[in-house]
């Protein structure tokens, strides 16, 4: 019986992974009260295509995290529609798993308890089947020896891998990564990017990856969506046609360099806009004067 459940899960993983898509249709979202409304996203339409790794980059504070919260269902749009496989997103559910900034492992649960948390809540995977699936994922993320450790006892990279496993066990239709490797040192970050890429290339589960690092975007992405300054709109969509499987050496190829130049130009322009309109206005002015 338990084995049946496991097989069933594997089947659905194999058949569904990489076939789901997300569509933003004219989505707007603002924060604040009616006297002081700050639009974060205005009339945004963007697609996360099936089986692709879509990376969203944009200047800091442009509303990237809001997009994540909207897809995940943590927040509701003021207007417009968000569709997951043609059905309206109404709230959080296991078909959209978020890997959060820094680490959002639950501190009072061990690595193992964190990983089995979702299935245990729902009771859809139990007993030996659950144990086997958890062990498989622990091996996959290289944390078998650390399954009884608490998150605080893990290194930054290990925490991220545990969180990946915790998301994957729920077999989501789409993985949403909100600057997941932020806060890691450069070495761990590089290793995590490669590890994550292998994981993605294994079954090409539809993935939305948010970052503010252009190198990370190019290394991982099938498509890069460059956002404008707040309120966020799509400035440019760049196809990244670097062959897979990828390794970090490709970042120094002429193609990658070309993409980087293109993206950097847009990002710099948008960043300067937000700089001038925001808290950096004084500095931008002085900076401009010094240039003259």
């Amino acid at each position, binding site marked *: 019986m338990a084995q049946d459940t496991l097989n069933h899960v594997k089947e659905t993983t194999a058949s569904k992974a990489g076939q789901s898509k997300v569509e933003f249709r004219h989505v707007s979202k603002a924060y604040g009260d009616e006297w002081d409304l700050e639009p974060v996203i205005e009339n945004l339409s963007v697609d996360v295509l099936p089986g692709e790794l879509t990376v969203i980059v944009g200047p800091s504070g442009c509303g990237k995290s809001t997009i994540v919260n909207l897809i*995940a*269902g*943590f927040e509701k749009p003021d207007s417009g529609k968000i569709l997951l496989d043609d059905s309206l997103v109404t*709230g*959080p*559910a*296991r078909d*959209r*798993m*978020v890997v*959060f900034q820094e680490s*959002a492992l*639950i*501190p*009072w*649960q*061990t690595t193992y308890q964190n990983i089995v*948390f*979702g299935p245990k*809540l*729902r009771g859809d995977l139990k007993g030996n089947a659950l144990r086997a699936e958890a062990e498989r994922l622990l091996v*996959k*993320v*290289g*944390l078998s020896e*650390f399954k009884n*450790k*608490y*998150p*605080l*006892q*893990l*290194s930054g*990279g*290990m925490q991220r*891998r545990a969180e990946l496993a*915790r998301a994957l066990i*729920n077999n989501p239709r789409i993985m949403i990564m909100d600057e997941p490797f932020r806060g890691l040192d450069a*070495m*761990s970050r590089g*290793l995590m990017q*490669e*590890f994550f890429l*292998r994981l993605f290339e294994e079954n090409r589960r539809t993935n939305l990856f948010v970052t503010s690092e252009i190198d990370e975007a190019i290394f991982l992405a099938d498509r890069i969506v460059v956002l404008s300054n707040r309120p966020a709109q799509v400035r440019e969509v760049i196809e990244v046609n670097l062959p897979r499987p990828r390794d970090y050496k490709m970042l120094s190829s002429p193609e990658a360099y070309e993409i980087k130049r293109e993206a950097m130009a847009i990002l710099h322009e948008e960043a300067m806009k937000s700089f001038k309109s925001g808290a950096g206005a004084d500095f931008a002015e002085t900076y401009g004067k010094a240039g003259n």
Partner: protein
Amino acid sequence: MTDIAQPSHTGAPAMPKKRSHLQNLAANKSLWRGITAIAVFLVIWEIGARWDEWFGKEWMIPGIGLIPPPSDVFEAWLKVLPKPGYWNSWYQSLTRVLSGFLSAMIIGIPFGLALAVNKYFRDIFFPPFEILRPIPPLAWVPASLIFWPTNEMSIAFVTFLGAFFTIVINVVGGARTIDVRYLRAAQSMGASQWDLFSKIILPGTLPSIFTGAAVGMGITWEVVLAAEMISGGGTQGGGGLGFFIWNSYMGGSLEQIVVGMISIGIAGYLCSSAIRMLGDWFMPWRRLF
């Protein structure tokens, strides 16, 4: 792929070699430092207090010279140790502290959690709570002596108040600062409202509950002692360590006053140690090794 997956740096230091409990204790440097510090403190106190005996009255060190030396205190202690009255004082103060403290926990934790998670409850109960909170527990003493039929009940009530406000405010603060990402992650995975409360909010509030308990326990001791002194123990056999000190003061026994003070110090230390141990036991995830 596996080579990438291998941890590049582990968060787990090597386990120390197994040693017996006594060996561990003997090798515990913090423990030895603590013992040395107390010993040095006692020696300085002894010298300071006996200075005038050795060098004449005109050399008496102000303050410390008036206090009985620890050796005399120890002697006085040995005298009261076999007396049931002394232990009865311990028993009475401890019972009052524990009853006040436990009732504050039992009422305060659910009350604080309700304030934290329910907006309506908070809108209604937080304003009166915030007005009553700044009133020092001791300001309640006269009113509660009048209000409650027995001395014992008024002491218990004031003790309860001392811990209650601290515990509630800590629980509210703890529950409201739980990382929203834990709640969101759980929601995505299909958690019900009850799951969110029992698996995220409650364990997430535990550290603050224990902080509140530790602080609350300290306040409870302060309040009990003061209440015992004010109410005078009195007719119903009152007593308690507060009354023990007051009585010694009335009887002019300086040594016995200090005995009472140190007894309270020890009692308070035992209580906070118990809370710390419970905290470690309840929250294994906070241990970093």
